[in-house]
Structure formats: C-alpha cells, structure tokens
C-alpha cells in the first residue's frame, strides 16, 4: 500500500483536518439550504445528495476505505445498493396511499 505509506507521518493529520473541515462545510450548507427555504422537491434531492457526500467522505478518509484493497471496498459498498431495492419496494406500497385518498 504505497499510498498509505506516503500518507504516513504527519500527512495523515492533514487528510483528517481536511475531511473534518469539509464535513463541517457540508453540514453548514445543509442547514443553510433548509433555512433558505428551497422548494420541497429540490430540498429533499439536495439534502440526500449532500448526506451521501458526507457519508462517502467519512467512509473514504476517516474509515480509510480509500486506502483498502478494492475487493474490500466492493464487499462493503456493493450490498448497500440493495438499500435502493428496499426503498423501491416499500415506496410503491406507501405511495399507493395517494391513489386511495379521495
């Protein structure tokens, strides 16, 4: 893991500091977007994208996933795609309510 060795000794702290900084920036942005009163559809989309961005930052740099072997990254990340199926399965049922309401 050449990259890891290069980042060893001092450079790690820089990576952590930058990650911390961007996480705070995105969080401030999230709260700002809510306070700014962005239209509902855009708000939800934007917030979900920003949350995914924050989660990726944490997993990649704080949890070092970016420096792990690619097959470990796949083992962790690929099953999460199934969450989309979970949402799709439940959303259909939940959205039916709108058709049932007069």
């Amino acid at each position, binding site marked *: 893991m050449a990259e890891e060795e290069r980042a060893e000794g001092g450079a790690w702290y820089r990576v*952590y500091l930058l990650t911390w900084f961007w*996480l705070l920036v995105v*969080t401030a942005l999230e709260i700002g977007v809510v306070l700014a009163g962005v239209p509902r559809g855009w708000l939800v989309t934007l917030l979900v994208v920003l949350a995914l961005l924050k989660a990726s930052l944490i997993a990649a740099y704080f949890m070092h996933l970016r420096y792990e072997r690619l097959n470990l990254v796949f083992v962790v990340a690929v099953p999460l795609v199934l969450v989309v199926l979970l949402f799709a399965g439940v959303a259909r049922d939940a959205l039916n309510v709108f058709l049932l309401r007069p």
Partner: protein
Amino acid sequence: MSEMMRVSGRQGSAASAWGGGESPFAVSWAKLMMWLFLLSDAFTFAALLTGYGAVRLVAGTWPRQADFFNITAVVGPMTFILICSSATMAVAVAAARRGAWRTTARFLWLTILGGLLFLGMQAFEWTGFIGEGARLTGFVGHQADLPAMFSATFFVITGFHGGHVSSGVVYLLVKAVQARRGRASAESIEIAGLYWHFVDLVWVFIFTLLYLV
C-alpha cells in the same frame, strides 16, 4: 475432486486477490469482521429509515420538525460535536500507528468527551420532546391529534443511534485505559475507530432525514 485440488493449489500461490489467496482482503480477520458487522448494522438502520419514510408518506401530514426541535442551537451543534469526535478519533488512530500511546489515550478521552456531550444534548432534546407530550406510542395532552408515528419513529431511531453512541463510549473507555497502559494494539484502536466513525456516518442520515427533510 480434481476441482478441489485445483482450488487448493491456487490458494497456496495467493497470487491474485480474486483467486482466493490466503488473505484476499489484505486485512486481519478482526478488521474484516468489524466491517461485516458494520455492514449488517447499516442494513438495520436502513430498514428503520425506510420504515420511517414509508409511515411518513402514509401519514399524509407530518408536523414541522422545527416546531419541536431547535435545529440551529441543539441539533446542529450535536452534529458538529459528533464530526469533531470523529476527527479526534482519527487522530487517536494515527497516533496509535506511530506508537504514541499517550497521544492516543488523550485523543481517545477527547472522543469520549464528544460522545458524552452528544448524549447529554440528546437527553436534553428527549426531555423537551417528552415535555411536549411525545411518547413512544403517540402524543398525549393538547398535542394528542399529532401522528403517533412522528414520536414513535423519532424515539426508536434516535434511541437506537443513541444506544450505539453509548456502547461506543464504553468501547472507547476500555481502549483508552488499555492505550494508557500500553496494552492496546494499534489495530484494535483502528477497529474501535471504524465503529465510532460508523456511528457518525449513520447520524449523517438521521440528521438529514429526521430533522432537515
């Protein structure tokens, strides 16, 4: 039989990660197990949040979160504290890798402090919400007409997350004492770090879906 021999022969060579070498993931079993546990935990949280989304859609009307929770003065700072504690945890892991155990212990204590502050603020928030008439099974008092699922999902999801933070605090306490005595391995600190960062990662979604959306 010949297939088995072929496979075991390939294992011995450990040439390619995809070929099932001796350590295909290039991490120890303990770290791999933590990753697998966190993956299963991610699905538990995903199921809870999916259920939350479904009942919120079905409920039709949903109270404005800002009427019950102070996003800028309480929940925002809670998020800030958790992100900071994740950063101090990362520093503790880096220090452990260098063998700087005093620094490791110091930053682990800072992380624990962050966790305790977070839990304190969550307790404050729960107290306020319960004061408004929120219960696990619905609302009582003058708010009784609010959707029961609003308080139920809130208590279950933030409670489950708070449980994770509490166990994380105990986990880190053990590691801090071990680090102080020089009896922790750098990898065990890193594995504890994985757990702590995951708790922060989950909060990202809870914060977004329960408080902001």
